């Protein structure tokens, strides 16, 4: 390999890339751990050969490594996808599926989508809501506490990065079964129990310390996560709409604020874009960052003050790829370049220039500040005990120039740094060969219900949620644990503005189990579930976020299933008329056990015009009728019931957009008219679990008649009780409005059945199709089963 070393000091390498053969290029990428492929390396070689005609500095190579990583550039979502014959399937999924869906929905209340650090929608005439959800899977697999905590810290900075003040965190976590046999864990990987405890601790640590309530989320357990833990961290913020602006121009100073830069988190972005292996921990430990929530708390104070005084022209957080990515993206945004002096960066330890440039040390933000405001910004930072450095400025000249000790170590066009060669991937989806199982109806339904209620994917998450401060800031109206019994709220509601009754509704939908049958219907079900949950408490005007966790996209079957899921996102976002405002994909979730169970998290953010009208799931009054809205179909494929019986099945729940949308509109109208006393969606575990959860959350019981459940092609008690058909809700209707409610149902033309009533005696009594009593249990027993299923 031809290179030279200059000692400025320290030593800096210059590689004569123009003369490199393809083999040498690959060797170079491997030895510097650049994670660049041959197409990309050739494009860099070509650029240096023809345009610059000089050697490439190590710092420049590392810039490409970060800026062109899958993590930063979404090469798969942006790429051309072809079938095995080379025929195009879809070009640029981000543009032609996700963004196109949003454009079709064409909502005037979207302030910013799919481009800034977070998606932004209007809250009211004055304020807007910013939302972002990220994954931190790879770091959490290596260091569950640090990985999860920095995942939370990172997504909070995304919110600060659009000038919003964080008001809530959410997290969705997926682990292998907690009782997974230790000797079946691959070498170099960690047991689900260890990961579970570490991740939960990390999430609580960051949110609690920073004073941001961790309010919503989900936890999934499945064998498909043993080799690949999944950690989604989300944050919601609020900002005066008028303060969302970007006015940076050449000459504005670049101010780096917050933590000192250190050697942690080097190559994080490229680490996140490769598979996990036996030696990942040894090789990539340094890619995991160190969390310091108190530092970020100070940053929050300073940034909100700088925002309110209008001192900065632009802002961005430092995440994957560190300074390199932040500076280049900001320079691109003004259509210019930047000049950076690495000597100015405040450091924790002595570092090489390229390390300073790409370090992902946490709790740092980059501000663009007009010269005349620099002193005031530094003063505010000083008052909040924050370290700052003025590290350079934006320039008109569209080049990124990076200096160290007076030597120019990078001089490349901004646009070239952000335009990797278009990638081409092959996709092929194979429908799995699955069968619907045949077995006799179970004998003991009471025992079955108890087993389902205490099963890992259904039981109460109270043990975990209590360790998260979900009340700080004092604005959590509908809490994740409802009432004295800690009922499982469908969605949470926040009241972010003191002098307004308007609320923000946050819910999630995640149905990874259906991926085993068909990722298309998995994605459809996840979207529907997120919307359903939001509607349950009264949410409307909903916007959604997509977060994909998939396997290696360079393998056609993985990509084939991803394309199916993204297609469903387009179809159902358009169908339900809900726009995507933000999203993120985490690919390369592979381990020696194979790919991760394909997981799509849909986060839904709705508006509740008056939080005093919020509806919760707990039964309110004995004697009130209970209605089931929506049709029950024989859809048990991938259900929790089949899982308990040891099957997967093939009858995956589908989504009927038209009827489901109609039902949601009906429910919102009935709520606004005050007819609905309690509302809960039917989801994992079907009607049996949903009705139990409503009783568990209250002091009442219920009397239910299965023959009154509206259904098609269903004549078994277990199918009615445990089918997971989408688009269904359970409602407790105020007795005195029952006639009006029924009229409303008729006018909407929805399927509804009066399946029973709320009873005073705290027993769950379910009558089967023949009129026999299938289940007759104390609610207290159901509560015990449900609450005892998960221990930290």
């Amino acid at each position, binding site marked *: 390999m031809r290179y030279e070393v200059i000692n400025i000091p320290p030593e800096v390498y210059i590689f004569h890339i123009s003369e490199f053969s393809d083999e040498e290029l690959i060797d170079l990428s491997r030895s510097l751990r650049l994670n660049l492929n041959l197409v990309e390396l050739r494009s860099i070689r070509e650029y240096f050969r023809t345009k610059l005609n000089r050697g490439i500095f190590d710092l420049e190579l590392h810039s490409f490594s970060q800026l062109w990583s899958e993590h930063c550039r979404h090469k798969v979502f942006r790429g051309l996808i072809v079938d095995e014959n080379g025929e195009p399937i879809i070009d640029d999924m981000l543009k032609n599926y996700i963004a196109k869906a949003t454009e079709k929905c064409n909502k005037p209340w979207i302030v910013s989508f799919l481009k800034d650090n977070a998606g932004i929608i209007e809250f009211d005439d004055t304020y807007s809501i910013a939302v972002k959800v990220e994954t931190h899977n790879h770091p959490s697999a290596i260091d569950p506490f640090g990985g999860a905590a920095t995942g939370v810290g990172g997504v909070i900075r995304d919110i600060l990065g659009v000038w919003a003040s964080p008001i809530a965190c959410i997290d969705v976590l997926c682990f292998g079964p907690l009782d997974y046999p230790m000797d079946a864990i691959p070498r170099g990987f960690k047991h689900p129990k260890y990961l579970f405890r570490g991740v939960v601790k990390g999430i609580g640590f960051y949110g609690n310390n920073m004073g941001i309530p961790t309010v919503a989320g989900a936890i999934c357990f499945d064998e498909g996560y043993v080799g690949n833990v999944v950690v989604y961290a989300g944050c919601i913020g609020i900002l005066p709409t008028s303060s969302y602006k970007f006015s940076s121009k050449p000459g504005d100073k670049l101010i780096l604020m917050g933590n000192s830069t250190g050697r942690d988190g080097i190559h994080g972005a490229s680490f996140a874009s490769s598979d996990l292996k036996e030696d990942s921990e040894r090789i990539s430990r340094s890619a995991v960052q160190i969390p310091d929530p108190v530092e970020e708390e100070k940053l929050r104070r300073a940034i909100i003050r700088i925002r309110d005084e209008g001192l900065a022209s632009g802002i961005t957080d430092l995440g994957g790829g560190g300074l390199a990515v932040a500076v280049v993206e900001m320079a691109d945004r003004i259509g210019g370049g930047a000049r950076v002096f690495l000597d100015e960066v405040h450091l924790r330890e002595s570092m090489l220039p390229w390390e300073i440039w790409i370090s992902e040390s946490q709790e740092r933000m980059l501000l663009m500040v007009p010269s005349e405001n620099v002193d005031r910004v530094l003063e505010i930072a000083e008052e909040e005990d924050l370290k700052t450095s003025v590290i350079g400025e934006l320039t008109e000249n569209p080049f990124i120039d990076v200096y160290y000790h007076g030597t120019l170590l990078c001089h490349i066009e901004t646009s070239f740094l952000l335009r990797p060669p278009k990638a081409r991937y092959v996709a092929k989806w194979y429908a799995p060969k699955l069968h619907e199982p045949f077995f006799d109806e179970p004998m003991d339904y009471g025992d079955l219900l108890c087993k389902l209620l205490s099963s890992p994917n259904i039981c109460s998450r109270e043990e975990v949620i209590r360790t998260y401060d979900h009340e700080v800031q004092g604005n959590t109206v509908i809490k994740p644990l409802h009432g004295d019994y800690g009922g499982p709220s469908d969605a949470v509601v926040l009241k972010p503005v003191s002098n307004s009754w308007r609320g923000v509704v946050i819910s999630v939908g995640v149905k990874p189990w259906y991926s085993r049958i068909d990722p298309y219907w998995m994605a459809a079900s996840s979207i529907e579930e997120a919307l359903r949950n939001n509607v349950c408490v009264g949410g409307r005007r909903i916007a959604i976020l997509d977060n994909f966790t998939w396997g290696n996209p360079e393998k056609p079957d993985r990509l084939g299933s991803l394309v199916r899921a993204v297609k469903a996102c387009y179809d159902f976002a358009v169908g339900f008329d809900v726009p995507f405002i933000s999203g993120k994909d985490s690919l390369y979730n592979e381990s020696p056990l194979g790919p991760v169970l394909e997981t799509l998290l849909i986060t839904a953010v709705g508006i509740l015009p008056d939080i005093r009208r919020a509806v919760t799931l*707990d039964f309110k009054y004995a004697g009130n009728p209970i209605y089931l809205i929506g049709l029950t179909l024989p859809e048990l494929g991938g259900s929790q019931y089949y899982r308990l019986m040891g099957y997967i099945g093939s009858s995956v729940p589908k989504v009927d957009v038209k009827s489901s949308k109609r039902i949601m509109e009906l429910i919102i109208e009935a709520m606004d008219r005050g007819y609905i006393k309690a509302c809960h969606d039917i989801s994992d575990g079907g009607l049996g679990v949903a009705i139990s959860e409503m009783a568990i959350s209250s002091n009442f019981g219920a009397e239910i008649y299965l023959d009154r459940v509206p259904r098609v092609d269903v004549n078994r008690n277990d199918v009615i009780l445990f089918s997971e058909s989408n688009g269904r809700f359970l409602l407790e209707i105020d007795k005195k409005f029952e006639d009006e409610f029924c009229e409303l149902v008729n006018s909407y033309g929805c399927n509804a059945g009066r399946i029973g009533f709320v009873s005073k005696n705290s027993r769950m009594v379910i009558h089967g199709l023949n009129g026999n009593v299938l289940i007759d249990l104390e609610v207290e027993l159901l509560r015990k089963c449900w609450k005892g299923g998960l221990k930290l």
Partner: protein
Amino acid sequence: MKPKILIIRVAGTNCDSETARALEEAGASVQIVHTKRLIDRLLDLSSFHGLVIPGGFSYGDYVRAGAIWASKLYSKLMDEIVSFADSGKPILGICNGFQVLVEIGLLPGLGEFGLRSISLAPNDSGKFECRWVYLKPNGSNRVFMKYYTPDRIIRMPVAHSEGKFIASNYILKVFEERKLILLRYVMPNGSPAGGVYPFNPNGSYMDIAGICNVDGNVMGLMPHPERATYLWQYPDFTSKIYGELEYAYGDGYWIFKSMCDYIIEEII
């Protein structure tokens, strides 16, 4: 004239704005100020009528909850704080603020300042606990508790890792004799929690959730009254009809209201 109340903060304080909101609701005019400004003498503590040390994780609660903030206050501001308390002005410490008051020795204030005679130790559960609890207030304290009638059971949330109240038998006896225990964890029916989890969420001796000094004008409590100031903050407000409720405000509001009343009646 409105009671002028100072809320102090440092890095890691995070309950200051909702505490200010609750105090303003109770009629106070509130200023939130970084402790640094007091230490640099840019602001005079004695110009305020009341002081509140809010919740949070001051300096990340490294060493011990509240310890670093307390050591700053003790070394730089202790004289001002002591004379503030001696003048009869109310000081309220919530959660992390309670931990700070214990660390600087203002609570229980029975011995030498700077020496801890009681402690807020890690919870028995070994975990952070965020949950609503039932409490029995001691209405004999006129500064903070005047709105609580003797039989009243109130509710507020706790959210902490280190809130287990520990003291020697001697001190506990003094507390009981002098009626310095202002809040105790109880069962939903009002009977003593008797240390039973989760009603007593942290294992506090004698179910103690809040105390005051001998003069009654310095109070510390682990629960968060600012998170129980409005009824919509309650975990089950959707199950209730407004008309059925006794007060328009939540239980926590009345601590702030009592404090403001006291300032208007006794201080201003």
